[in-house]
């Protein structure tokens, strides 16, 4: 009797795993692809250059909670800019978007104050990362998490072409 009960429980467990496995694997694949997108984007653009990801110099102004993901205002500024320093590039990355790189700014000495702003689309709640590069080729970044209620990337199901 005990043996039968044990076998029954074992088979139940096996069926359960089989039933949930595809779901798990899909979810895992989706998560993996997102992480890969972000990591690949970083690798391809910065060639393994060291980035200081928790720089206090960059201040990101964006709402903590955005109702509509189709236009989220994001402003970034820089503190402690040295007299011989200017910002040559800024990248905005929305980590969870299918194409993470949102914007690439290129500046000269006349505009390299690191004070920029725009409005971005968020597919879902995600971190926004601002990566700065100065004229000494130093990379530093800061990030802020923004919770989005309605995603703004992608077209609603009614508009999908058949």
């Amino acid at each position, binding site marked *: 009797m005990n043996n039968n009960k044990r076998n029954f429980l074992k088979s139940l467990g096996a069926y359960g795993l089989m039933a949930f496995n595809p779901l798990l694997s899909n979810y895992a694949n989706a998560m993996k692809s997102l992480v890969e997108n972000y990591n690949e984007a970083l690798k391809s653009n910065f060639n393994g250059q060291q980035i200081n990801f928790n720089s206090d110099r960059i201040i990101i102004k964006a709402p903590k909670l955005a109702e509509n993901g189709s236009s989220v205002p994001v402003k970034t500024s820089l503190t402690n800019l040295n007299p011989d320093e200017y910002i040559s590039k800024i990248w905005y990355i929305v980590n969870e978007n299918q194409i993470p790189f949102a914007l690439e700014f290129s500046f000269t000495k006349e505009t390299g104050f690191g004070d*920029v702003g725009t409005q971005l689309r968020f597919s879902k709640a995600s971190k926004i990362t601002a990566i700065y590069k100065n004229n000494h080729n130093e990379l530093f970044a800061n990030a802020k998490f923004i919770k989005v209620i309605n995603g703004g990337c992608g077209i609603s199901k009614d508009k999908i072409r058949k």
Partner: protein
Amino acid sequence: MSKQGRIRFSIPKRIKKNVPFRIKSIIRHPMELPEHNKDGTPILKKYNTIHTMKAFINNKEIMSIEFSSAVSSNPYIQFKAIISESSELKLLYLDQLNNQYEKTRQLKVIN
């Protein structure tokens, strides 16, 4: 559609010599999103999106931006600049359908 490409930008009334000032610009543009088939494959075609914006002072390029589809429709951009003398500011937008939109304005420096 007729209003597509209309640029509005604001600059401060008083610009001081060698003091940074903020330029705000907005352009009316749909910034189409990539569409997908029912199975999730993207539909390959030219989408009506802005891909580049450039700013010139006295025909010298001072800034450029590369856009992706993650920028919202009617793209808004703000940045800071510095000038030493009165000059002409030009903003230029380029989109995927080979349209060019530009607007110029005189910047007057007050000593």
